[in-house]
């Protein structure tokens, strides 16, 4: 199998960036139907075609799980913590937390400059978004790809470039000794294995009280996984990190082998069964799902992996 040359890898960066647009419009669709509340997603992405019910439920499951875990982390640390969203895309978590009055010491988002530049633009020109990152005593500093507020910081960076990451982490005023939650939603899989391993190792080295929440594909070895890989490849998305997505075990191992003290991994079938039953009942009523197997297969091929460098955070679960 030939290695892609540089021209091709620029192409595939664009395809990876496009996954953010896709995920954001899926989330907007689900929000519009009432799956969860998000008053901010509309500022980042336009309305598009309605998605199939299993897609909406899938996005619900992923978004609500992240929210539950993040809320728990903020609670057990009493807000004396930081949140770092890796490959954040147009995620609106920061604004939803502010709306709920949940404050943290630092909230940093990293993504390709091609993404952060657009996000900066949307924030700048939307009062509600700008308001939440502004502070009376602190001027919001921004340039094309970066936005620095008092708590919230948005930074353009190539995560495969560790030196760049180190520099940006420093610039973002992240305190390595504070409890820090790292969030990655379908991000690591697009990085070559040694690059993501490098990144994870570096984080474990620097942040002694870290919790990592990784959501991405799993069980890619079967037919469904094969078809998924193929479909993504035709769109130009090469899952360079697919090897770590073979099973929940390989997902755990990639953390344990890179300096993390403990790790836990559960596929979405398991996660779905642990979500609050009233919520599950509520969303199951929003749309009738004609074929349960579609949802089950979807759920069997995505997983949440949590890893920690501080044993206290092993308690942050559903």
């Amino acid at each position, binding site marked *: 199998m030939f290695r892609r040359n540089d021209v091709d890898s620029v192409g595939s960066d664009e395809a990876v960036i496009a996954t953010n647009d896709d995920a954001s419009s899926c989330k907007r669709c689900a929000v*519009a139907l009432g799956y969860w509340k998000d008053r901010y997603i509309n500022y980042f992405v336009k309305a598009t075609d*309605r*998605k199939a*019910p299993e897609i909406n439920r899938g996005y619900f499951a992923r978004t609500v799980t992240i929210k539950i875990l993040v809320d728990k982390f903020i609670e057990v640390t009493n807000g004396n913590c930081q949140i770092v969203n890796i490959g954040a895309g147009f995620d609106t978590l920061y604004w939803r937390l502010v709306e709920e009055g949940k404050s943290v010491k630092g909230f940093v988002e990293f993504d390709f400059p091609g993404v952060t530049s657009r996000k900066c633009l949307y924030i700048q020109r939307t009062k509600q978004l700008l308001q939440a990152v502004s502070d009376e005593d602190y001027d919001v500093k921004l340039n094309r790809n970066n936005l620095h507020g008092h708590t919230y910081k948005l930074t353009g960076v190539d995560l495969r470039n560790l030196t760049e990451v180190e520099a940006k982490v420093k610039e973002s005023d992240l305190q390595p000794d504070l409890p820090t939650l790292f969030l990655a939603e379908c991000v690591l899989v697009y990085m070559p294995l040694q690059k993501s391993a490098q990144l994870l190792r570096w984080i474990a080295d620097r942040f002694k009280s870290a919790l990592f929440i990784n959501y991405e594909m799993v069980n890619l070895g079967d037919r469904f996984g094969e078809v998924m890989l193929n479909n993504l490849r035709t769109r130009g998305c090469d899952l360079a990190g697919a090897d770590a997505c073979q099973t929940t075990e390989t997902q755990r191992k990639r953390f344990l082998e890179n300096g993390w003290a403990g790790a836990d991994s559960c596929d979405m079938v398991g996660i779905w069964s642990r979500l609050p039953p009233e919520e599950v009942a509520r969303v*199951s009523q929003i*749309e009738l799902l004609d074929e349960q*197997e579609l949802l089950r*297969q979807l759920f069997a091929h995505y997983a949440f992996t949590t890893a920690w460098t501080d044993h206290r955070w092993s308690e942050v679960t559903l």
Partner: protein
Amino acid sequence: MPQVTEEAAKRAEEIKNEANEHFKKQQYERAIELYTAAIELDDNTAIYYGNRSLAYLRTECFGYALEDASKALELDKSYIKGYYRRASAYMSLGKFKLALKDYETVTKTRPNDRDARLKFQECQKVVKMIMFQKAIAVEENTKTVAQSIDLRSMVIEDDYEGPRLEEGMVTENFMLELMEHYKAQKKLHRRYAYKILLDIKKQLMKLPTLVDVPIPDGAKFTVCGDIHGQFYDLMNIFKLNGLPSTTNPYLFNGDFVDRGSFSVECIYVLFGFKLLYPDHFFMSRGNHESVTMNQMYGFQGEVKAKYTAQMAELFTEVYNWLPLAHCLNNRVLVMHGGLFSTDDVTLDDIRKTERNRQPPETGIMCELLWSDPMPGKGRAPSKRGVGIQFGSDITWNFLEKNNLEYIIRSHEVKSEGYEVTHGGNCITVFSAPNYCDSMGNRGAFITMTGGDLKPKFTTYEAVPHPPVKPMAYANSILSLFS
């Protein structure tokens, strides 16, 4: 709850007026912001929620719109606009019965309001179309869509190069041309499309609900499962197993459309063959041959995109007449879903079932289209929320009571395209491979010969198709009512 101060109320009112100004200029996001601000100062005024609800409708946030409308009505039961808003939200969320209730409330409170009456009637039309009711087709005073089609007004343009019916009839030539035409992603002229539907409806109306299919000794017979708009895979079935003919009869067991985006092509090919070989080509209704499914999973959108809304309505009438089950040589029963919630159902009970309607939520017709087999014994509620799950003893009892050998059903995707369960008494066949372009499953069909009727399975992978993704036509329900 803290009382709203006069000052706060006054300020809230000012902000609301500002919001209204933005709304008028279609600056909905800004209007929502301001309504929210007004609510923060004064959360007791129904109008703020009502107005915000309308702004949410405009920005297609139907979930929020519903919430706000309900809140407005909670604060003020007599706030008429609240019912309108809520009804709109319900319509957009596909909850038509609930929308109708709200429109009804308005017409009762405002009997002289013409607009209210119009909306109520429109909604009623939609509800009648899709809600479960005993529609008796041959009712003298209701005009069917079929009766209102005027084929003569549909002129064939000079540059139409597609297949033509010969004196209004389907011929073998027509079918061959049609399939090639469709493979090239072209459209059949609407005049011929409508003619096929009108003729099919007439034919289906004459059929019993349970069709008895005789298979002579040694003669071949093929049963296919769900196709779900996967036209190119349907063509592959014919390639693997031969085109339908009087010596190569087929039974297609429901779910011909939805999800796959070539549903129109599939259904016209199937209906075409049914017209061409009425006694050698059989079609059974699936749960997707219904309005709620077609609205959500793309068929209705596809028909509207390729033809007209009127044709979509005609499809509803046609689907209502599809038989619900087939019995092969009095020995093998074939239905889309499965068996029943009670022990004493006979073939005669199926024959007597009134089928010209949308599938109901309970009863024989519902269960024929929706039930699933399960491992173990007894019954359990369906995971789908409609129909039931039935165990091996249920199947055995049913077969024994009705003197049958086994049942064939479809309805569930299987990784190998088929599954034999209940000790061979219950076979599932699913013919749409790589379902939704994502499942990676094989498709399958069953062949058998008259005589022993032993099932043989052929499985196959998906074939390539033009880059139209599944559910391409399943747009959000257009809000005609906000």
